């Protein structure tokens, strides 16, 4: 294990090299943690859904609370029309949350600390939301860029700003998650390195920082998953209920 704080983000091949044409799709440590996260979600929620007792046990309560939590989040931000997208937002929230949380285990890999992963998710959401918007409202969806109650003189400027902000959504969404995860994990690694390098004499202060940072990072892991999901809901709300 190297002491370079960026070393933890290295992606390396596990097993043989797999290539489709020129494209390398080998199974890597990133793939491993995606599979682990997805499997963990499936196992937890399958266990929670299996029993059907009137008074739930712990795991059933966990899954039902998660269900109502996401359900409430969607209905609060995007309204009743967003119900068909519940399963997607639930999967998204849980996937990001579990990837973030598995990243908190020492020597593990944080899938969401890679811009390509978060960008693919964000781009998919962006394209999906745009398609839904145009399907629901036709060209009327373009009214999104024309806020009501704005003086006509300011309108050209506002429309340009609105379009830029709309187009930068996937970037802001993906960079927010990626940068948070990367920065937190780098910081933890740096303080961990200080503990080792300062030894028994001076290592206690950075050790304390490391402990505090671990708590903070667990909070951030949950918060960023929540922010990612709720922003998706807000974008969906724009597409479904067009009133800017």
């Amino acid at each position, binding site marked *: 294990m*190297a*002491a*370079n704080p*960026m*070393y933890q*983000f*290295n*992606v390396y*091949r596990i097993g043989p090299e797999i290539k489709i044409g020129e*494209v*390398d*799709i*080998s*199974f*890597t440590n*990133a*793939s491993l943690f*995606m*599979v682990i*996260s*997805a499997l963990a*979600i*499936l196992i937890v*929620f*399958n266990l*929670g*859904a*299996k029993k*059907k007792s*009137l008074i*739930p046990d712990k795991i*059933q309560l966990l*899954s*039902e609370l998660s*269900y*109502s939590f996401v359900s409430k989040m969607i209905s609060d931000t995007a309204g009743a029309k967003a119900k068909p997208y*519940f*399963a*997607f937002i*639930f*999967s998204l929230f*849980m*996937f990001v949350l579990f990837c973030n949380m598995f990243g908190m285990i020492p020597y593990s890999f944080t*899938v969401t*600390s*890679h*811009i*390509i*992963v978060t960008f*693919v*998710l964000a781009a998919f959401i962006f394209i999906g939301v745009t398609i839904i918007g145009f399907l629901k409202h036709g060209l009327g969806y373009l009214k999104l860029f024309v806020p009501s109650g704005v003086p006509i003189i300011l309108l050209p400027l506002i429309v340009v700003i609105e379009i830029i902000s709309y187009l930068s959504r996937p970037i802001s969404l993906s960079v927010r998650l*990626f940068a948070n995860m*990367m920065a937190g994990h780098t910081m933890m690694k740096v303080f961990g*390195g200080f503990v*080792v*390098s*300062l*030894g028994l*004499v*001076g290592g206690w202060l950075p050790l304390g920082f490391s402990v505090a940072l671990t708590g903070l990072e667990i909070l951030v892991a949950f918060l960023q998953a929540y922010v990612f999901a709720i922003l998706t809901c807000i974008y969906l709300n724009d597409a479904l209920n067009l009133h800017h």
Partner: protein
Amino acid sequence: MKKIIIYLYPLFSFNYIAISAETGGMPQLNPEFWFSQIFWLTITFGILFIILSKFILPKIRNNLESRKSQIMENIEIADNQKTKSEKNLKEYDKIILDAKDNAKKTFNLAKGKVQLDLGKEREKIESELNSEIEDAENEIKDLKKSSPEKISLIAVDTAAEIIQKLIGVEVNKSNVSAIVSEQVKLMKGK
């Protein structure tokens, strides 16, 4: 100080090796495994989404809904039972009220009857008592009539005896009786 240097040395040496191995800071910007990550993300997230949306989430929703409906059902049953018990309570109250009324009536009836009986009995006893009192009064009258004679007889006897005891002379009873009757007359006259 030496210790710190010994600890610091591998830190920097590893740094050097790692940085030189990666040719540049962030592994995130190295496109070598980008397609691999996209591919595996699509697969894992796709499978996760399909299984969650087709199999697991409907089950959880069913669980939640069945619990909700069961709770509603239970509340309904409880409401029904509540209204039923309230009705029963009203009936019970009515029964108790009726019973109280009946008891009062019976009591009054019995009371009247008893009073009537009592009056009859009393009259009977009173008439009996009256007749007895009359009898007694008659007897007393008779006694009263006969008593002065007896008293004077006794008075004569006792006077004769007392005189004999006092002076030792036998007195003629007729004399004594004359004196006594005189005295009686005197007393009566008084």
